[in-house]
Each structure stands twice: as structure tokens, then as C-alpha cells.
């Protein structure tokens, strides 16, 4: 647009814009002179009629220039007036672009279908990319993140490496590792605390970290400072806020550092604010405080609750660090065989993994599957569009013929057709981006929390760039096939071939096109169906307790332990008095929501080598009735147990007494043989503590009336809709203690929903992709066949006139198509079989090669293909030879 230079003496800004408008459709060679004329006349008019009138005239005139009929070109062959030699190659592209746009307008339905197809294909990819990018692609907030590692104990069982929390003793020994520049630990189990100084009491998740935690991460604080050695002085209560909590609870108060807040009755000093990104890779908390570890006594504590973060020294590889950790832990195991060696003699080792690996490792298969699915949708869309363009170009053979006869070279035709593809794809890409933006809300709602990281899909710059890049590539790819086909000599560029019989090449091309679409559709449908069947399997799993009409809420008891038990007793009693509540109890772990934290138990009379891990469940009286967990033997807990008693679940009973003895009346040590003894008073059925699809875990239930484990949640069984109880419950808690907060009020169904969120997410996306692919495939087959019937009406007419039966006509039409569909079904099934390992990562209790699914999907696709063929084939069979021939 340099034809309108910005000169001081020249017109104002508005005028310049209008001059640009006026010059838009002027031949480049004339622009300077014509615009000069307008400038000159504008100045004259301004002098004569005044500024406003002159500007009005320019506006009108600019529009007139824009829409003026340019008249016939100077030379009949149309090359002289918009000479390529004058305007350069861009003016030709501009002309082609104009032509492509006009073509779009001329065939609005076909163009809309093409744009929609593109939008579906590109939109699916944009959506997936917006989900995957924040997790897989975005850089972490930590400087030199590649040196950051995450360390857990690692125990090899059945050839698989387990990841387990670290005990304080092991932590102290691991600090000696030389591969790391700095090492620190944090408690893997954040605690819920009641924050009372900021308006309504609310629960905050507080994580505890050792001195060097933030030094390892190297994230600079937003305000104040990180936790450091000062905060470990006796009596210090320092709190570092997470940016999110700072914004939400403290309204991003810039002066928050140095202020005091009340939490569980104590005064805490806020010393700093850390960016929210600092939680990535460790655990999600609202604030951090100190995790003191006494090196002198650490070895005596046999509880496993720590994880470590380490920053590798520059130049030290992860492998080197891991071999050092292994030899270090072997030394620890020989020094403390009782705690650090499995009964089999295998030492417990420690393993470091990179933050990136921790972030992406567990979810890579999910995203591989989803990205693959989206890519397949785009491929189907692309094939469909290429076919559409080829068909459309067949109808334009005469036009191409004329162009070539008038001297348009092959490259010119290719350019024009590719540009047409590009115009469609850009329109589709923009629509797809819009569609993706619309689905973001839904996706966010569905997105599971992956590991510790809430997936938050967003249309960030990389996502938009990716989408636009994909759009251009897809557009060029879709344009290329028909362009080459159309420009090949004898292909479609001939003047003489108007309709008639289809060439063998295009027939084969059609077979391939149909086959590829069907293959991709079958593959996606198989994956989606397997995932759906898996979800059904998972939901059919008996969690061991009753889900219906259950409600659960987090409550943290105030003050000392004894107070806590009295508090929960009273809370349970008063909650049971609420209308609609049939039974209530308090519990420490969320059933199905537990993320680890087991401990060991040893049957009396056995050695430490026979220790068994189990999840300690601390409950008040009536929990088995509230959760409807059947008691198999012995008795349930009373409100106040005077002895140390425990109830084991079936799995734990089998593990402790493998010979099948009656556990009731026997005693178990907590921890190791040196630990206190508890008498087993009953056996209950197993419940799934971690997730529906996890194996039954071992549980040891203990009465909270003995002071440990302390409950942290309230569970109610109701005979009214559980949602209606949130308010009365909150009021009840407020009456009991205005400083306590009720958090995470959820129904048991919500908990099942959370436990299956990841599956649902994958399923919804895969099913969406499969649905889009199936629709595109059906529309593609229908469109192709309809078009073919239209093109071959004359041929069919002749055949019928010469005595062909309807069946023969149908067979000729469907022959290639049937070959394509069948080959596609086989290829799609084979593809699904080849990807079985990947698909299996998302399955539960379901073979990735389940014959019923394969067969069902195959039949379904055949039926859909049949339906898509129905109407065009009927039309072909009804061709009246007389009419068909006369029409030509």
C-alpha cells in the first residue's frame, strides 16, 4: 500500500484510509495517477466547498471506485489490462484470490459444506491442542527446569517399580547425595486448616516444606520471601501464600506480607507470596509452612509421608544421579535392614525423575490417543474435501480447458486451485478456532486433574498459531491433490470431455478415498467404543460401600486431640438429628479418593519380616452402617472404646493370617513388632480406597475415640436429596464453632465422578471424534455416489437401453465403492489392533481386541455406509433411458 505515501502536505488520516479504499480495485499501474488525481481534487474541493463537503465527496467517491464496473478489458484475451508484468506476481494471486472468493459465493452450499468440514477437522485439533499444550508443551516456571528432579522411594514388585513416599530417616540419608546442587523435602499430604481472620471461616490447604524447598525450585517470590531457616526457629509460625489464595482470599493485597492471620486458633505471620506456578510438579496447596525434621531422631520415625525435590549439579545426568541414589540406598538398607529391606531381601531404593517426566509421564498415553484421534478426524475431513474438490473440478473441466487454451500454464492452474483450497481452509480454520473456543468451557468442566495438575484448556498464542499453521498446511494439502489431478494433461484439462464415462484412474482414486475414510472411522469408533465399554465396566464396579444418597464434607477439628474427638462426636450426633439424615459418622480418608499414605502392621507373634502395609482408617461409631459396609465377623466399634481395638478388612486379614485363622481376638502391632498392640474385634468387607479400578487395598479400621487416626471428614447418609443438606450442615457447624469451615461438600456420586473424570474426558473426546469421522465418512460416501450417479446418468441410460438390468447398474456403481468400504473396514480394524497397546492404557477390565466391539463397529459402519448409498443407488436404478439420453 505504499502507493499512498504519508506526506505532511497530504491529506489527513481519514482521507488516506479512503484513498486506500478507492485504490483497492485499481490496476496497480494506474494507482499512482488516479490517487494523485483524487488528492488534487480533494484539495480543490476543500478550498471551494469546505472540509466537510470535500471529505464527504471523497468517501462517496472511494466507494464508487470500489464498486464501479471496470468495463470490458482492453484486449479480448484479458491479459492486457491487469498485466502481470506491471503488478508483479502478487496481483495474479490477488486475482486468483478474488476468483476463489467468487467461486465460494457462487456455490454457497458446497462451499459451506467444505468450510464446515474444515471447521470440524481443525476445530477438533485446536481443542485437543488447547488441552494438551499447557500440559505437554508449555515451559515450567522454574529456571533450568531440566535440572529439577522429583525423588521418591522405589520398590520393585513383580517387575514394576512402585513409587512410595520417603520416611524422615531416609530423607536425612538422601540429603548426602552428591549429584545434587540442592535437595529438599516436602510433606506429600497437605493438611486442611481453618482460616478465620479473612471474613467467613474457610478451609485452606497448607503444605509443609523443608528449609531449601524454594531454593531448589528457584522461583522468585511475588512478594516478601520464601520459607527459609529463620522460620524453623522454635515458636515461629511463618506462612507463604500461594498466588491463587492471595488473590482469592486476600484480594491480592500488596501489603499482605508481614501481616498476621489466624489459622486453627494460632497466629501465623505471612512472610511471602509465591507464584501459582510454583505448585506445578509438587502438590497443590494454598499456602506453605515449615516441615521440621529432627535429624537426630528421624530414624526412629517409621512413617512415610515425604517426597523430595533436587536440583542436579550442572552436567550431572539423571542416570548418574539415579545410580548414586541406588548405591546410597543400598548402603542405608544394609545399615537398617529392618526398615529398608523387603522380606525378600530386596533393598528399598530411591529414584529421581525429571519434573517434565513427572508432569507428562502418566498422561502421555491419554494425549497420544487424543491427539491421534484429532489428527485422524482432520485426515478424514481432508480426504473428504479433496474428493469434493476433485468432483467440483470435474464439473469445471470446460473452464480449465478454456484457460489452458488461452495460454494459462499448468502452474497457473495449480496455483489457482491451491488458492481455492486455502481460502476454504482459512475460512474453516477460523470457524474451527471459534468452535474450539466455544467448547473450551465444556472441556474445562470435563477436564480431569491430571496427577497434581488441573488441566485448563486455553486458546493461548501457541494454540492459535498451531491452528493457523495447521489450517494452511491442510488447505494446501487439500488443494494440491485436485490441483495436480486437474492440471494433468488428459486428466481434466481437456475441452472435449464433458461428462461421459469415468476414467479408470478416478475410479481407483475414489476407491482409495472411500477406503481411507472408512478405515479411520472404524479405528476411531473401535477406540471410542472400547473406552465407553470400559467406563461402563468401571461404573459397574462395586466400591464396597453404598454410593447413593451419601454426602461427604471436609471438617478440621479445632484444638487438641481430645477436643477433636469430642467435637466430632458432638458433630455426628447433631448431624444425625438434622431432618433427612439417617446416619452420620466421621472418617479420615475419602473412600475412592485416597492417594496413598499407608503404614505397616505386624501380626502378634510374627517378625518384622512379615509386616503388611495397609491404609489406617480412623472412624467414629456407626461408620460401617453409614457407608453400608458389611461386617463379616465380630463386632463394630462402640462410641467410646476403652481398649486399643481394630477392625481389619478381608484382604488385610488374609495378608496377616494367611492360614485362614479367625482374626477376631488376635492382636496386631502398629508399625513394627516394637509398636503398640491392637486387638482385632471384627472383619469387614473390602472397600476400594483409591479408585474404582484400583485393586482392593488393605485397610485397618481404628476407632477415633482412641485419639488416632483423627477424622477429617463427615459422612452422612440421607433420605433426601444430598444437595439439600449442604446449607443446614454449614449452619450446624457455625453454631458449634464459628471458627470452623466446612469445605468440599460433595455427594458420593461426585466422588465417583471425580474418580472417573479422566475416563469420561477421554471418552467424550474420542466419541466426539468418532462421531465427526462417521458423519464425514457417511456424507462423503453419499456425496461421491450422488455425484457419480449424476455424472453417469447418460452411461446408465445407455446401459439400460441396451438391456442391462437394474441389478447390473447397481453393481457397476457400487463395485468400486464396496471394495473401498470393505478394505477400509479391514484396514481400520487392523489399525485398531496395531494400536491395541496404546488403547489398552485407557481400558479397564476389557481387552483392547474385544471381538464383540470389533464386530459391532464393523457391522455398524457397513450399515451406515449402506444407508449413505441407498438414495443415490435408488436414483440410479430409476434412470429412464429415454429421459437420460434426451437430456444430453
Amino acid at each position, binding site marked *: 500500500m505504499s502507493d499512498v505515501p504519508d506526506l505532511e502536505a*497530504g491529506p489527513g488520516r481519514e482521507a488516506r484510509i479512503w484513498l486506500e479504499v478507492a485504490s483497492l480495485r485499481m490496476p496497480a499501474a494506474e494507482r499512482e*495517477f488516479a*490517487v*494523485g*488525481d483524487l488528492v488534487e481534487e480533494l484539495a480543490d474541493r476543500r478550498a471551494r466547498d469546505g472540509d466537510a463537503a470535500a471529505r464527504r465527496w471523497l468517501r462517496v467517491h472511494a466507494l464508487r471506485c470500489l464498486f464501479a464496473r471496470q*468495463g470490458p478489458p482492453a484486449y479480448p484475451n484479458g491479459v492486457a489490462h491487469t498485466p502481470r508484468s506491471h503488478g508483479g506476481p502478487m496481483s495474479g494471486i490477488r486475482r486468483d484470490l478474488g476468483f476463489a472468493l467468487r467461486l465460494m459465493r457462487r456455490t454457497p452450499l458446497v462451499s459451506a459444506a467444505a468450510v464446515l468440514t474444515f471447521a470440524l477437522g481443525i476445530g477438533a485439533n485446536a481443542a485437543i491442542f488447547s488441552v494438551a499444550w499447557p500440559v505437554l508443551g508449555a515451559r515450567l516456571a522454574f529456571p533450568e527446569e531440566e535440572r529439577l528432579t522429583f525423588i521418591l522411594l522405589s520398590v520393585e514388585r513383580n517387575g514394576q517399580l512402585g513409587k512410595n513416599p520417603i520416611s524422615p530417616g531416609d530423607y536425612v540419608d538422601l540429603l548426602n547425595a552428591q549429584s545434587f546442587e540442592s535437595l529438599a523435602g516436602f510433606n506429600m499430604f497437605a493438611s486442611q486448616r481453618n482460616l478465620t481472620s479473612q471474613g467467613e471461616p474457610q478451609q485452606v490447604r497448607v503444605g509443609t516444606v523443608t528449609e531449601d524447598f524454594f531454593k531448589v525450585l528457584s522461583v522468585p517470590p511475588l512478594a516478601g520471601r520464601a520459607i527459609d531457616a529463620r522460620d524453623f526457629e522454635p515458636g515461629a509460625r511463618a506462612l507463604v501464600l500461594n498466588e491463587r489464595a492471595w488473590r482469592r482470599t486476600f484480594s491480592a493485597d500488596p501489603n499482605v506480607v508481614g501481616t498476621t492471620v489466624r489459622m486453627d486458633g494460632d497466629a501465623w505471620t505471612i512472610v511471602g507470596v509465591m507464584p501459582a506456578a510454583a505448585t506445578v510438579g509438587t502438590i497443590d496447596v494454598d499456602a506453605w509452612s515449615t516441615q521440621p525434621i529432627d535429624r537426630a531422631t528421624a530414624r526412629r520415625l517409621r512413617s512415610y509421608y515425604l517426597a523430595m525435590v533436587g536440583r542436579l549439579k550442572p552436567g550431572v545426568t539423571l542416570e548418574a544421579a539415579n545410580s548414586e541414589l541406588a548405591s546410597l540406598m543400598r548402603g542405608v538398607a544394609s545399615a537398617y535392614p529392618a526398615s529398608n529391606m523387603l522380606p525378600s531381601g530386596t533393598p528399598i531404593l530411591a529414584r529421581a525423575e525429571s519434573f517434565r517426566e513427572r508432569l507428562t509421564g502418566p498422561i502421555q498415553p491419554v494425549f497420544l490417543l487424543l491427539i491421534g484421534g484429532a489428527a485422524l478426524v482432520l485426515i478424514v475431513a481432508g480426504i473428504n474435501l479433496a474428493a469434493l474438490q476433485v468432483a467440483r473440478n470435474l464439473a469445471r473441466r470446460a473452464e480449465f480447458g478454456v484457460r489452458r487454451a488461452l495460454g494459462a500454464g499448468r502452474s497457473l492452474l495449480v496455483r489457482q486451485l491451491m488458492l481455492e483450497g486455502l481460502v476454504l481452509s482459512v475460512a474453516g480454520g477460523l470457524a474451527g478456532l471459534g468452535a474450539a473456543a466455544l467448547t473450551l468451557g465444556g472441556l474445562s468442566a470435563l477436564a480431569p486433574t491430571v496427577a497434581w495438575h488441573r488441566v485448563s484448556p486455553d486458546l493461548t498464542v501457541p494454540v492459535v498459531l498451531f491452528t493457523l499453521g495447521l489450517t494452511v498446511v491442510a488447505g494446501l494439502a487439500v488443494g494440491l491433490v485436485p490441483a495436480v489431478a486437474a492440471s494433468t494433461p488428459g486428466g481434466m484439462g481437456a475441452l472435449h470431455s464433458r461428462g461421459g464415462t469415468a476414467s479408470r484412474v478416478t475410479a481407483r482414486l475414489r476407491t482409495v478415498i472411500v477406503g481411507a475414510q472408512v478405515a479411520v472411522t472404524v479405528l476411531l469408533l473401535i477406540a471410542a467404543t472400547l473406552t465407553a465399554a470400559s467406563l461402563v465396566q468401571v461404573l459397574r464396579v462395586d466400591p464396597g460401600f453404598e454410593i447413593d444418597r451419601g454426602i461427604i464434607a471436609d471438617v478440621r477439628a479445632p484444638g487438641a486431640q481430645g477436643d477433636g474427638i469430642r467435637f466430632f462426636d458432638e458433630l455426628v450426633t447433631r448431624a444425625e438429628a438434622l431432618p433427612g439424615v439417617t446416619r452420620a459418622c466421621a472418617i479420615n480418608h475419602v473412600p475412592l479418593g485416597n492417594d496413598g499414605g499407608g503404614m505397616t502392621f505386624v501380626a502378634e507373634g510374627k517378625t518384622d519380616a512379615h509386616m503388611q502395609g495397609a491404609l489406617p482408617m480412623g472412624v467414629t461409631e456407626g461408620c460401617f452402617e453409614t457407608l453400608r459396609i458389611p461386617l463379616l465377623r465380630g463386632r463394630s466399634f462402640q462410641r467410646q472404646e476403652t481398649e486399643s481395638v481394630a477392625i481389619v478388612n478381608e484382604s488385610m486379614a488374609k495378608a496377616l493370617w494367611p492360614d485362614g485363622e479367625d482374626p477376631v481376638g488376635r492382636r496386631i502391632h502398629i508399625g513394627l513388632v516394637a509398636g503398640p498392640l491392637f486387638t482385632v474385634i471384627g472383619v469387614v468387607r473390602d472397600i476400594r480406597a483409591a479408585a474404582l479400578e484400583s485393586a482392593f487395598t488393605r485397610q485397618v479400621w481404628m476407632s477415633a475415640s482412641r485419639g488416632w487416626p483423627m477424622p477429617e471428614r463427615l459422612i452422612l447418609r440421607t433420605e433426601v436429596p444430598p444437595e439439600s443438606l449442604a446449607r443446614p450442615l454449614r449452619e450446624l457447624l457455625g453454631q458449634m464453632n464459628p471458627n470452623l469451615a466446612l469445605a468440599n461438600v460433595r455427594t458420593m456420586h461426585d466422588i465417583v465422578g471425580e474418580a472417573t473424570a479422566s475416563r469420561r474426558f477421554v471418552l467424550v473426546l474420542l466419541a466426539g471424534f468418532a462421531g465427526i469421522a462417521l458423519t464425514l465418512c457417511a456424507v462423503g460416501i453419499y456425496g461421491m455416489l450422488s455425484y457419480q450417479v449424476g455424472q453417469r446418468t447418460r452411461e446408465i441410460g445407455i446401459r439400460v437401453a441396451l438391456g442391462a438390468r437394474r441389478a447390473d447398474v447397481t453393481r457397476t456403481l457400487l463395485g468400486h465403492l464396496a471394495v473401498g468400504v470393505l478394505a477400509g473396514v479391514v484396514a481400520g480394524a487392523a489399525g485398531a489392533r496395531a494400536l491395541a497397546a496404546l488403547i489398552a492404557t485407557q481400558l479397564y477390565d476389557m481387552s483392547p481386541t474385544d471381538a464383540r466391539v470389533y464386530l459391532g463397529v464393523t457391522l455398524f459402519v457397513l450399515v451406515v455406509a449402506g444407508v449413505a448409498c441407498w438414495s443415490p443407488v435408488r436414483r440410479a436404478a430409476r434412470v429412464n433411458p429415454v429421459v437420460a439420453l434426451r437430456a444430453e
Partner: protein
Amino acid sequence: MSRHPPPEALGDFEQLVLLAVVRLGDDAYGATIRREIEARTGRDLAISAVYVTLGRLEAKGLVRLRVGEPSPTRGGRRRKHVSLLPAGRRAIAHAYRQFMVMVDGLEEEFGSR
């Protein structure tokens, strides 16, 4: 007379532009031609249409286009001066004669402006 081929037929708009060029003489270029036509006929033409027509007239060998010097009143842009070629003069004269022959005796019917 017979030294030249019969003059090309002119379109209505081509006639207007050629007549403006005749009237303007040495001062004929895009803006003046446009204004001349507008002032006389009241038709507010798009400048781009003038150039399209000029291009066509040039291609027919009726006018010659010559690029002038940049001028400050035009924001540093150049003018494209138009001068009538003999063939152009013949063509417009031919059109004029034909028109006059055809309107002869019809003055009453159309009035004199």
C-alpha cells in the same frame, strides 16, 4: 479519406472522455477530465472508470498517455497527461458527424437543452 481505415466505433463513455480531452487540450489528465465531464454532464464518475476508459482508448490508438513530473499538490504523485492522436480526432469527429446527421430535423423533438 481513404488513406485511413474507417474509424473505430466509440462507446458512449469513450466519447465523453475524448470530448473532454479535446476541450481541455494541453491540460487533459485524469482529474481534469473527470471534472470536465462532471461539470458539463452532472455525471459524477469514478476516477478509476476514467482510467479504464483511457487505457482502452490508448489501446485503440486514439490517445497518447504521457507520464509527467511529480507534483506537491498531488502528494508527490505524477500526472498522466492525455493528448489526442489523429486517429482519436478522426474517431470523435466521425462520431460527431454521425450524431449530427442522425439528429438533423429532430431538434423540435428533443429541444435545445
